[in-house]
């Protein structure tokens, strides 16, 4: 790729080294730990599913049983006991789930011969792996079949009715209007639930529960409309919050194609404990990597929370860190949908140039990554006409810098969750702008030493000094001191800390082992 910004390669390399240095002690910590949701995710991959009459999901029942039985029992990995129960009862997975839902306690069953457990577990791994590989193959096949029919960048639309069946209608309409990606927004506060609800749901606030059944329903609907439109419609959800890896697992099983997933979002923006988040994000990313699912990182949140012009460097720093953590979980660049956003105050003089610069910088520093570009939201107001103009420029910058995944801005952003017509207007605007300016990216150069070029150099420099400070401080302490996003998060504070697990010497997680092997993460 030819450069327009002439960013010094040494600086970029230096930033990547800093990211590695910052992440390294964290990765060491991660590798020694698991969490309740990592265990539940492994259980889900093994086949644990369903819920008891109170709605407590089977994976939670199993993990809770183990915790209750002996606080250290989880250190051996939950799969051990679940498979033990399978072997012991001779049940099918489905039968065991029903049994557990009915009150059967896996923690109370003495362990059978480890050989037997290992063997049974290997079968389960194969079953899950085959399903996930099948999903991946199906996706690749369809994308091959419909090659060239998607928009570039991919047009990404959200649905958020709270009711999966309404969501389906909205999603169908969106896809037929031209969307390439449908994201089902989650209900407010699901991220803080330490379990994943079960079954189809119709009651959410500002979004719909992420459940495996909801995934299935939406996947089927999108496959159907995709056949009609001759476009593979990607489905997105949130492997984020307190159940990151479980949702990644569900997504892998149901062929989701993208996952909101950030290495630090939960810590900073949801006050989830930092150790827990780091542990969870790794396992979820390993699953995503294996499933061929693109992650979408959450850098846009830095910009809605702080000033987008001043804090541009925090976005780049976060992109470097997300990239590093993603690599260490086996995610290749082409599955790293690093985030950023068009969130500067629209009244800034030259603001368009700064946005262009930031977007182009991301493009050049992360050339193989399907960058996910977020629309203006914070400065949207009830003035839908001004909002439409802002979205037009946003669409422009996205195309002008060859972004990968383009989240459509809604003219009613400040008013309500999107009406069907708002979504149409968004797609229509993007298609107009992007078709009209096709070729612009290759046709344009930036003046050396101009505003655009200088801004990028400037942001990169600031990013490096910021990362140097973080490196010196250490990531855990840096977060505690409020270096990121202007919030301070105590190391042992935040939600979900109690769900952290130290892996015991006999820790058994054949799914993790399998993923590590397949992803080449074996040491």
């Amino acid at each position, binding site marked *: 790729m030819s450069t327009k910004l002439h960013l010094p390669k040494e600086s970029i390399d230096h930033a990547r080294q800093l990211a590695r240095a910052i992440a390294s002690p964290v990765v060491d910590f991660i590798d020694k730990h698991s969490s309740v949701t990592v265990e539940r995710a492994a259980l889900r991959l093994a086949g644990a599913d369903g819920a008891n009459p109170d709605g407590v999901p089977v994976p939670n029942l199993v993990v809770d049983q183990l915790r209750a039985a002996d606080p250290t029992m989880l250190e051996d990995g939950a799969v051990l006991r679940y498979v033990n129960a399978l072997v012991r009862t001779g049940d099918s997975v489905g039968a065991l789930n029903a049994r557990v839902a009915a009150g059967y306690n896996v923690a109370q069953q003495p362990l059978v011969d480890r050989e037997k457990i290992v063997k049974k577990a290997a079968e389960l791994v194969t079953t899950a792996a085959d399903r996930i590989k099948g999903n991946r193959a199906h996706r690749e096949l369809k994308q091959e079949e419909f090659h060239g029919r998607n928009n570039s960048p991919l047009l990404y639309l959200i649905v958020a009715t709270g009711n999966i069946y309404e969501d389906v209608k909205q999603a169908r309409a969106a896809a037929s209007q031209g969307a390439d990606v449908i994201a089902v927004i989650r209900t407010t506060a699901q991220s803080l639930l330490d379990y994943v609800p079960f079954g189809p749901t119709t009651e959410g606030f500002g979004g719909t529960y992420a459940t495996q059944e909801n995934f299935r329903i939406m996947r089927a609907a999108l496959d159907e409309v995709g056949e009609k439109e001759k476009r593979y419609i990607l489905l997105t959800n949130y492997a984020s919050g307190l159940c990151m890896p479980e949702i990644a697992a569900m997504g892998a099983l149901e062929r989701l194609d993208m996952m909101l997933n950030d290495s630090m979002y939960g810590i900073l923006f949801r006050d989830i404990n930092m150790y827990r988040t780091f542990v969870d994000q790794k396992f979820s990313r390993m699953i995503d990597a294996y499933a061929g699912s693109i992650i979408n990182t959450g850098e846009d949140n830095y910009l809605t929370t702080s000033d987008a012009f001043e804090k541009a460097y925090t976005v780049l720093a976060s992109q470097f860190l997300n990239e590093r953590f993603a690599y260490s979980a086996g995610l290749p660049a082409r599955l790293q949908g690093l985030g950023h956003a068009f969130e500067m105050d629209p009244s800034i003089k030259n603001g368009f140039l700064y946005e262009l610069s930031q977007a182009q910088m991301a493009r050049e520093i992360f050339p193989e990554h399907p960058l996910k570009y977020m629309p203006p939201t914070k400065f949207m107001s009830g003035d*839908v006409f001004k909002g439409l103009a802002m979205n037009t420029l946003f669409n422009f910058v996205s195309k002008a810098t060859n972004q990968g995944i383009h989240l459509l801005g809604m003219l009613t952003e400040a*008013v309500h969750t999107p009406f069907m017509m708002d979504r149409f207007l968004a797609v229509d605007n993007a298609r107009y702008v992007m078709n009209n300016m096709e070729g612009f990216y290759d046709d344009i150069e930036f003046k050396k030493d101009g505003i655009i070029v200088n801004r990028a150099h400037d942001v990169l420099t600031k990013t490096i000094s910021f990362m140097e400070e973080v490196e010196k401080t250490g990531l855990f302490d840096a977060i505690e001191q409020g270096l990121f996003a202007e919030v301070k998060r105590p190391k042992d504070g935040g939600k979900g800390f109690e769900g952290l697990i130290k892996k015991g010497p006999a820790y058994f997680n054949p799914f993790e082992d399998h993923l590590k092997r397949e992803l080449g993460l074996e040491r």
Partner: protein
Amino acid sequence: MHVVRPYGDTMDDGKVQLSFTLPVPNGAKGREAARKLVLSWGFKECEVVHSTVLADDFSMYVAYAKTEQSIDYDSVVADEASADASMDMEAVDAFIKEHIGRKIVVVGACTGFDAHTVGIDAIMNMKGFNHHYGLERYTGIDAYNLGAQVPNEKLIDYALKVKADAILISQVVTQKDTHIHNMTEFVELLEAKGLRERFICVAGGPRIGNKLAVELGFDVGFGRGTYADDVATFIVKKIVEKQKA
């Protein structure tokens, strides 16, 4: 009975977007006045989501409101001339051969002070519009396009001269109802001369509806998005209808 209401994101939520200006200063009182005005239209809820100053005594409002009003869709009668069922050029030419057996003659113009020829050209000129050829290209049709700002009198004289079957009138400017005055004058002229039944009279333009045209004494009116196909289909069918009558 098929009841429909505006739809935001849930069936029957009745959501409507509005914007308008009020001749009052911008501010809390203006916003409240805007809200009340919207409610006075029978909306059940209204949120004024934006207001801005346009001038000392003028301000603009953007509002979202919710209506409980509905309409019985089954009872709605579409009154637009460009039916989906128009024949294309080949079909029209074949129809003419089979049912009329001679070339038909069509005269068109932008009448009165109207100089917006693009619309009538789109219908009549060879190249047509949006990949739909114009009447001049039809083998079964002799088409004469007189262009802009043609007085009604002159148009009628010309139609008589070339023995036209149909006269096409384009009216684009509608400010202060000039189109209505002009179209009325055209029909009255024809009637005064006892020629109304002599011609099929077709009106067209972006703000011309079939209803309006028929009310004013035309046979039909065509609005936005019309193609020559629609007009030709109408004319040839009408000729046959007249032959039969």
